[in-house]
């Protein structure tokens, strides 16, 4: 539900960087979105074209790189994707703790 303001922010940041580099047309925005960031990539895409209108990002492609969350086993250190209703490490059966992997939400770059 807060994808709308967030999409606005993405376009604002990309436009700022474009202006700083003397560029009036952004061809692609590379965005990294972890599945645990709470953002639905398809909703961001839905708003993107409408909000981008009239900005340097108008007509640019939104490239969303999704990251699957990984847990780190507190016993053997293995990084793994969790199964539903479980935090169990597939290697040793220990409990995995959350990591930063999967919580990303940043603008990696723009292509011009």
């Amino acid at each position, binding site marked *: 539900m807060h994808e709308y303001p967030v999409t606005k*922010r993405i376009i604002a940041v*990309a436009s700022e960087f474009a202006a700083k580099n003397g560029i009036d047309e952004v*061809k692609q925005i*590379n965005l990294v979105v972890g599945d645990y960031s*709470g953002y639905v990539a398809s909703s961001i895409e839905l708003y993107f074209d409408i909000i981008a209108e009239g900005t340097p990002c108008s007509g640019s492609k939104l490239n969303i790189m999704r990251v699957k969350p990984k847990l780190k086993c*507190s016993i053997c250190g293995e990084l793994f994707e969790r199964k539903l209703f479980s935090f169990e490490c597939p290697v040793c059966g220990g409990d995995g703790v959350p990591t930063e992997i999967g919580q990303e939400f*940043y603008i990696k*770059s*723009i292509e*011009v």
Partner: protein
Amino acid sequence: MAEENREIEIMQSVYDKNEQVADQINAELTERGIFAVNVMGAPGVGKTSSLIQIIKRLEGITPYVIEGDIEADFDTITLQSMGVKAIQINTGGACHLDSPMIGQAVKDLNIEKGVLFIENIGNLVCPAEFMIGEHVKMLVSTVTEGSDKPYKYPLAFEKADIIVLNKCDLIPYTDFDEEFYMKGVRALNPTAPVIKVSCTTGEGFDEVSKWIKEKANA
């Protein structure tokens, strides 16, 4: 042949603005001697009822409350009738509080020295993603929501500094599986205290209030 794209690196969090404002609010509150608690939890878990129990036990520490709701101000009126300085934020639809909203509310409250409880919108998802200038996050969870909640809504449990497990007086009437619940909580969050409470009987709230007082005085 089409010209090849040139890539300009940005590497900037989309949350940057919210986080900058949150840091400013946190610094300002700290300077004014205010300890801020971001109170999170699903609708109906007893966030306001928990605050009432905690505030009764704060002894000598001035409580302040910012109430976040999509609509209405019932909770603010309840708190004000207890003599608590409380103000209402109505987000008019937004599912969480963000730091610019709190920045304004903190200015409006014009407070000094004490504990500021910021009761977030009833929602187990979005509030955990947004810093609002708090020193700690308190999650109110309940036995009636079911013991699978840490598995279904991991972020709220991961980010919490203290978890208040409310409605414990109802355990005999539910199928709440404490072991399964705690296994999930501990996988996500090895350190936060989990305190069993009941807003109806008041049990557990001495311990919650003690934890807050210790953190606030630290």
